[in-house]
């Protein structure tokens, strides 16, 4: 194929294809897949402890008892039996849901796509957190949404900042189509929306007649602290669309998720689903049914929680030991990720290149933003690597950060500080800056990071 051929195709590409991730980041992420790399970049649940014998028995039973049905198309909105399993999972977090309120989707990822497909015209406003789930970014982009990202702090989405945004939008006579949020064990930030703010968010939704899309893949993966009440439970389903998935409690490979929405919205979502793929895999829905019939899903979940808790602890411990004092990070009470912020002169995309030479990888913070923010942050996954790998991985990342910090301080020691205006953050230690901004209630320009819980004293 020649460049001219390519141009011929390129002329045919829809406008939405233009908004793609930077090639540099794509190239870097491609290298993270090398086997010698300790990757803290993926979002992978641990599937290695799922008992193969149980897997085999369930699949055998499906083959012996339901072969023809399991190999056939199914209903677009999913099987009733799948929906019963969904109801069981949602009940475990205090939600009650009827079969007719649910559409089974090909992972919750498809639900995000279908919601956008249903609600978003090019240029429409969608509100989400800053940072947001990196996997939602290409979806919002491909529907050409205008995305407004609202800051978070250690208690999740800052609802007062959200109010400011809503007021501004109202003055501009623009109605946001929905707010996308991951309230529990946020990906990538690792923080959880406080009870008070959950109430406030639901209140705001009613006041502004706003749809809230609650993406809750990790809610059941709580390691410590009290369970949080889902927005859906607080709202009763008037304004909250709920997204769930079996990916983190059973398997991401089966691609079974779901969406719960008010009937008129759900109807459109089902139509969109029909156009997208007719139905979610029948075979894997049968697998879910078989698996749930054994009544052991909560036991398996408990074993995962135990594994992840230990891995999180190891990661936090390793961060304390190996990350320089200029860094800060969140301490998640559950889920798969934490978010670390470095001094603002470090660009984590460049840092990743350096880290890859040491065979370790993370997700650069930029992936979680639609604008240029997040350059000094990174997402670290603790669910998909062993404790030894986590320790070693964090040690290596800490070492490359330390090199950059030292270099920067050497360069600026006699150079920038002398000239920088007193208000300039250059040369200010990250932790001081953070303290200053925490005191002033200001997230700070350029730092663009979720203000983190301060690290433990006296290390």
């Amino acid at each position, binding site marked *: 194929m020649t460049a001219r051929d390519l141009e011929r195709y390129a002329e045919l590409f829809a406008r939405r294809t233009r908004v793609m991730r930077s090639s540099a980041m794509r190239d870097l992420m491609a290298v993270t897949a090398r086997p010698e790399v300790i990757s803290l970049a993926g979002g992978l649940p641990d599937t290695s402890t799922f008992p193969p014998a149980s897997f085999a028995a369930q699949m055998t039973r499906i083959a012996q008892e339901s072969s023809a049905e399991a190999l056939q198309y199914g209903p677009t909105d999913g099987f009733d039996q799948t929906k019963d399993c969904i109801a069981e999972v949602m009940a475990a977090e205090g939600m009650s849901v009827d079969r007719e309120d649910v559409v089974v989707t090909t992972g919750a990822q498809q639900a995000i796509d279908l919601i956008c497909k249903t609600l978003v015209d090019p240029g429409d406003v969608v509100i989400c957190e800053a940072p947001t789930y990196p996997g939602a970014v290409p979806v919002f982009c491909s529907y050409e949404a205008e995305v407004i990202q609202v800051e978070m702090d250690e208690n999740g989405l800052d609802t007062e900042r959200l109010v400011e945004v809503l007021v501004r939008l109202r003055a501009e006579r623009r109605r946001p189509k929905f707010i996308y949020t991951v309230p529990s064990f946020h990906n990538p930030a690792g923080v959880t929306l406080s009870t008070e703010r959950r109430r406030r968010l639901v209140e705001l939704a009613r006041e502004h007649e706003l749809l809230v899309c609650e993406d809750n893949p990790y809610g059941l993966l709580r390691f410590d602290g009290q369970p949080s009440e889902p927005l859906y439970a607080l709202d009763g389903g008037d304004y909250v669309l709920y997204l769930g998935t079996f990916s983190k409690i059973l398997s991401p490979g089966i691609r079974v998720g779901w969406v719960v929405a008010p009937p008129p919205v759900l109807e459109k979502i089902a139509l969109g689903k029909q156009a997208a793929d007719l139905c979610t895999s029948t075979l894997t829905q049968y697998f879910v049914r078989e698996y749930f019939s054994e009544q052991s899903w909560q036991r398996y979940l408990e074993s995962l929680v135990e594994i992840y808790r230990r891995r999180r602890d190891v990661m936090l411990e390793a961060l304390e030991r190996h990350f320089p004092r200029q860094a800060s990070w969140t301490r998640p009470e559950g889920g798969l990720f934490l978010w670390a912020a470095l001094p603002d002169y470090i660009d984590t995309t460049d840092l990743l290149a350096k880290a890859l030479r040491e065979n370790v990888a993370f997700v650069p913070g930029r992936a979680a933003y639609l604008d240029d923010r997040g350059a000094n942050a990174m997402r670290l996954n603790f669910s998909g690597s062993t404790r030894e790998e986590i320790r070693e991985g964090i040690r290596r990342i800490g070492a490359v950060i330390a090199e950059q910090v030292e270099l920067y301080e*050497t360069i600026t020691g006699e150079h920038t500080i002398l000239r920088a205006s007193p208000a300039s953050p250059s040369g200010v230690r990250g932790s001081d800056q953070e303290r200053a901004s925490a005191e002033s209630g200001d997230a700070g320009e350029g730092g663009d990071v979720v203000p983190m819980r301060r690290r433990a004293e006296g290390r």
Partner: protein
Amino acid sequence: MKVAVLKGGRSLERGVSLKSAARVEDALDALGHETLPLDVGSDLVGRLRQERPEVAFIALHGPGGEDGTVQELLEILGIPYTGPGVAACGRCMDKVAAKHELREAGLPTPDWAAFNSTAFGELGAADALDEIEDRLAFPLVVKPAAQGSSLGVEFAADRAKVPAALVAAFSYDDRVLLERYVEGRELAVSVLGSEALPVVEALPRQEDFFNFEARYEIGRTEYVCPAELGSEETAEVQEIALGTYETLACSGFARVDLILGEDGPTVLEVNAIPGLTDTSLMPMAAEAAGVEFEQLVERIIALALERPAGAATLPA
């Protein structure tokens, strides 16, 4: 003929390399050669010894594949290979060494200053930044000395931007350079054998002007080939590109990137192993000269076989 295609490897440009190689492999198959694709790793020498290819097509980019390392191994194994030889690769990959050679040969290249991290850590180079910045003026460009693509290349609009730009560039290499920014048209001249191919001009979209990554994305940068230049300008640009190629003792092929500014053309860098993907500039230039991709590959191999076996550093 049995042709090994060396690709992949551990460089950050692995992705581009695999794309270049896939295209080369298709061409080799179409030409009726026996193709031996090799994703280079620790078994490379063993595989080459065992397979004994008649020639190696090097489709590697970045450190390791483009800096003379693989070329040296092939010299030792006595396997002819495509593109420039060991020393030329080394000179092209090291932007600082290349600039010194060009200056000595009287060829134009923007003013610069280069440092390694030791210079800052142990020799107090930070103290000299003021003078350097005064001499080069803003905006200036900060880049790693040895990195093939746009990775780590940053504009610094003012003094405050320099330290972070240096930290970024040092992520990719232990040596970086600060270079005077030259405003002008962005041109690339590929050289095949001893012939300069038609000039390619890159026209980035306005909003991407300071975004080097955009230079590598289809749709974000438009390329024109042959570039719309007067015949004298074209001749001058090609002459400087050829002079550069010869000064750095390149052979086989290479791509010279230049800026055509107010004071005429000036050389930014030389790619010893330019990309050969669908969107790469060298195939585009060859096509403009009437050389289809397969012919280009055949010619590159012929040039590899013509080159006297050579600068092996081990006694025979």
